[in-house]
């Protein structure tokens, strides 16, 4: 009997922990995508010119130079996309 109770407790504890974690994740909104995703129609600010880190050629050249001096490596910058998340 003692062995059965002990093995049940061994099974119960991780199960309860897992259930508790699930409940906490769902009930606190951690899984609510509405909280973390910017909707396609809300991306005006993200698509603004001022959000472009490479908008100033002089500043870009300077940071490129710092990167080159520090890392002894150059290139590999820039990715496609306009910021509106539509391509």
């Amino acid at each position: 009997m003692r062995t059965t109770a002990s093995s049940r407790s061994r099974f119960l504890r991780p199960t309860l922990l897992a259930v508790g974690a699930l409940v906490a994740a769902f009930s606190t909104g951690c899984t609510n995508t509405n909280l973390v995703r910017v909707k396609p129609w809300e991306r005006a600010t993200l698509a603004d010119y001022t959000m472009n880190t490479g908008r100033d050629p002089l500043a870009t050249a300077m940071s490129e130079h710092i990167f080159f001096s520090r890392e002894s490596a150059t290139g590999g910058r820039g990715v496609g996309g306009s910021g509106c998340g539509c391509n």
Partner: protein
Amino acid sequence: MSLRNLLHCAAALVALSCATISHAQLKVGDTFPAFTPNGVVSLSGAPAPATAGQVVLVDFWASWCAPCKASFPALAKIHTDFAPRGLVLAAVSIDEKPAAAVTFAKKLAPPFATLHDREQKLVKQVVVPTMPTSYLVDRSGKIRFIHEGFHGDATDKLLRTQLETLLAEKL
């Protein structure tokens, strides 16, 4: 509390939580919402076009969206070719700043109706997956085709083929 009760409570909580994150993204076969009740107005001041019993191409755009800008000349050609056969093309801006939408529309001067979803009520109801997205609506008001993004000639060709199909259909 027994384990079974605890699991039931947890399942109920999870189900409740899932219910709040469900998306109501409109898909093919759904009825497209009407413009006027959702606060969609014309940018030019003219009333929103009548869509009842018509084949309608609804394009959601924004002044800050580069592919939207690229799509306008193609949509203008589609409008020129298909409007005489009964197509209603309505381009709905979802801009938060009306002035930006007006400037964009004035600059490109499209021949089709440019509307504005002032409070973003329509776009929230439709839940557009990306910008731009266009919906081809048949004469019964049902969404028949959805185009996510604008992919140049590929989108243009597909739209034309689908429009031929829809315009050939009778109510």
